């Protein structure tokens, strides 16, 4: 009898519920982990805790009324979302945006991209157990938010762009401030690198962890830094140019292996490139109107249009269908985070719990964007 009991002793897999309340699922993502000790056998993301029905809301709002909602899709890169949305509606209307407005849009959007990458950099380091980089990075984010506040009056959900242009012109002194900031930022990014990049522990935690091949990334529909980290040189600003990006010079950083470290490097390099773009745009900023001639009540002719922009988390796309009234019939939002997150399950199989956190951090999701 005793013998039999001893024979029955065995180890078993178990489930661990990671989230929706968990410090490193970056919001309300729930991951159902099947574990063998510390090894992850399966990780199933459970979405929908932040679903607000954005696409349905759009159907009962006019085109301009929906703009503030767009901010709240990816609240960390609000201006980049607005840019995508405006592009879609402007395409539907057939409006040409004045040059000055286009440049202003690029400047504020790139500033927002840097701020967004900072919000990735800090928590990513935190996920790996280093708390200090977070505060270093947020010091610079504060400056960006101050600048964007002086432009738009808001610090997070700006509602600054308008269909056909931007709400108001740049305030006095902004150009000098932005120029000084770009100059200030570059050594600060080097400082971020000193804090992490060559740290032996950091390398151990990120090199070769969560390798996403370029092919797999394309198959999953990954975009943005996740795709570029896998070595695919694809950036909507270059591959499907919009706004005034063709007139500006910048490089698209890519990784080689597609591991967590590559995704990290790509984002840091993108911050440098964004600073470069801002400097050029400030240089070339023309004078002129900031709004196109757009009717007060926007009633696009029946038809459909797709506007896409390169957000800090991949492609943000708006597919708008109009039936001639002032409300869109259908508005479909395509976000980077959602597609990027779908790769997670494959990436973390066979890794440890700690790696799940690292890989998830390197994918950089915003739950508002995943659930919409």
């Amino acid at each position, binding site marked *: 009898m005793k013998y039999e009991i001893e024979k029955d002793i065995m180890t078993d897999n178990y489930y661990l519920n990671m989230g929706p309340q968990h410090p490193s699922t970056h919001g309300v993502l729930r991951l159902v982990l099947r574990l063998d000790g510390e090894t992850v056998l399966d990780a199933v993301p459970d979405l929908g805790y932040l679903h607000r029905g954005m696409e349905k809301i759009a159907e009962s709002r006019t085109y301009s009324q929906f703009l503030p909602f767009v901010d709240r899709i990816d609240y960390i890169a609000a201006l980049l979302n607005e840019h995508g949305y405006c592009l879609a509606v402007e395409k539907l209307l057939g409006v040409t945006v004045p040059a000055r407005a286009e440049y202003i849009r690029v400047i504020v959007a790139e500033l927002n991209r840097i701020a967004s990458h900072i919000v990735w950099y800090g928590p990513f380091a935190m*996920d790996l157990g280093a708390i200090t980089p977070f505060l270093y990075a947020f010091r610079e984010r504060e400056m960006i938010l101050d600048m964007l506040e002086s432009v738009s009056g808001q610090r997070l959900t700006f509602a600054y762009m308008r269909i056909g242009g931007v709400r108001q012109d740049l305030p006095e002194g902004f150009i000098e401030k932005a120029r000084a900031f770009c100059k200030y930022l570059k050594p600060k990014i080097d400082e971020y690198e000193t804090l992490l990049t060559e740290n032996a522990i950091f390398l*151990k935690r990120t090199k070769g962890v969560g390798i996403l091949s370029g092919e797999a990334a394309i198959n999953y529909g990954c975009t943005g830094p996740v795709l570029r980290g896998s070595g695919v040189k694809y950036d909507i600003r270059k591959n499907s140019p919009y706004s005034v990006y063709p007139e500006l010079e910048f490089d698209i950083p890519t990784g080689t292996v597609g591991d967590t470290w590559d995704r990290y490097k790509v984002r840091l390099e993108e911050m440098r490139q964004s600073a470069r773009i801002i400097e050029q745009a400030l240089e070339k900023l023309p004078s002129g109107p900031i709004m196109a001639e757009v009717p007060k009540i926007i009633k696009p002719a029946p038809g459909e249009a797709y506007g896409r922009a390169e957000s800090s988390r991949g492609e943000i796309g708006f597919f708008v269908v109009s039936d001639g009234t002032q409300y869109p019939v259908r508005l479909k939002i395509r976000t980077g985070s959602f597609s990027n997150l779908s790769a997670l399950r494959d990436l973390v199989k066979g890794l440890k719990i700690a790696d799940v956190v690292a890989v998830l951090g390197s994918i950089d999701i915003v739950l508002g964007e995943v659930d919409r």
Partner: protein
Amino acid sequence: MTLLFELIKQLIIAAVLLGFIAVNAMFLIWLERRLCARFQVRIGPNRVGFQGCLQPIADMIKLLQKENIVPKDSDQLIHLLAPIVVFTAAFMAYLSLPFGPKLIALDMDMGILYIFAVTTLSVIGILMAGWGSNNKYSLLGGMRSVAQIISYEIPLVLSIFGVIMLSNTLRLPGIVESQKGFFGWYIFQQPLAFVIYIIAATAELNRAPFDIPEAESELTAGYHTEYSGMRFGIFFLAEFTSMFMVSALAVCLFLGGWQGFGILPAPLWFIGKCYAVIFLLIWFRWTFPRLRVDQLMAFGWKILTPLAFLNILVTGLLISVK
């Protein structure tokens, strides 16, 4: 009558040590918060009292007022006892720490062995906390902690062998006395052992970069996830208690103990050196990312332990050549 006298004496010693631990912990809380703020380009708490010196007291009052939440399906007794076990293990080591030439509660012949024996007991408390909380995160944290402390105990003890071989004694005051003058400190004769000791001790303390058992971003708070109020406070107190203990041991073994060079009294030298080591530990914590659990084990077994053996071999050879 002698029994009564002995009992009163012991009570006084215990009270003095407890008082020291409490004051020390409060100072360390303040020091850690202020220092980490400096490392992080912040200012840190500076509102309560002069430069925030009363902040730890405010924190403690807050902790005392909080409700003690015990999870419904937890193992009540084990859950209750765990913080006490962890703290007691750390506290008992203070019994044979030499703060000065004659300033030691109990001068044992095998003082150092005693310290290692009792501090290892804290593992049991941590595992109790992990098990008793009935929470998978806690259990994972508890198990990680046991694996970690047991693996790092070995290089830790091995690293001090060199010092013991040089000083020919297991008595802590004896070890301190055998280090004569600044260049007599064992850190100069045993630099490798000192490095191994500091690394292994950081791992023993479960502090970053080895804070895997309480890895905030992975296991929320590890083994003390389910503790609140003063019970959490006791875990915190235990951490600072063992932090000072580990530093004090480093000072005794490698940095000449209470011996100083000026007019300052010996205990002040001792405590000052301890805080220098603690500063190093705090610096580590706010600089490094965290290792992964398997990398941590590999580091302990494959790098630190062989190095510690190598250190013993070299020390032994040098002693026999002399």
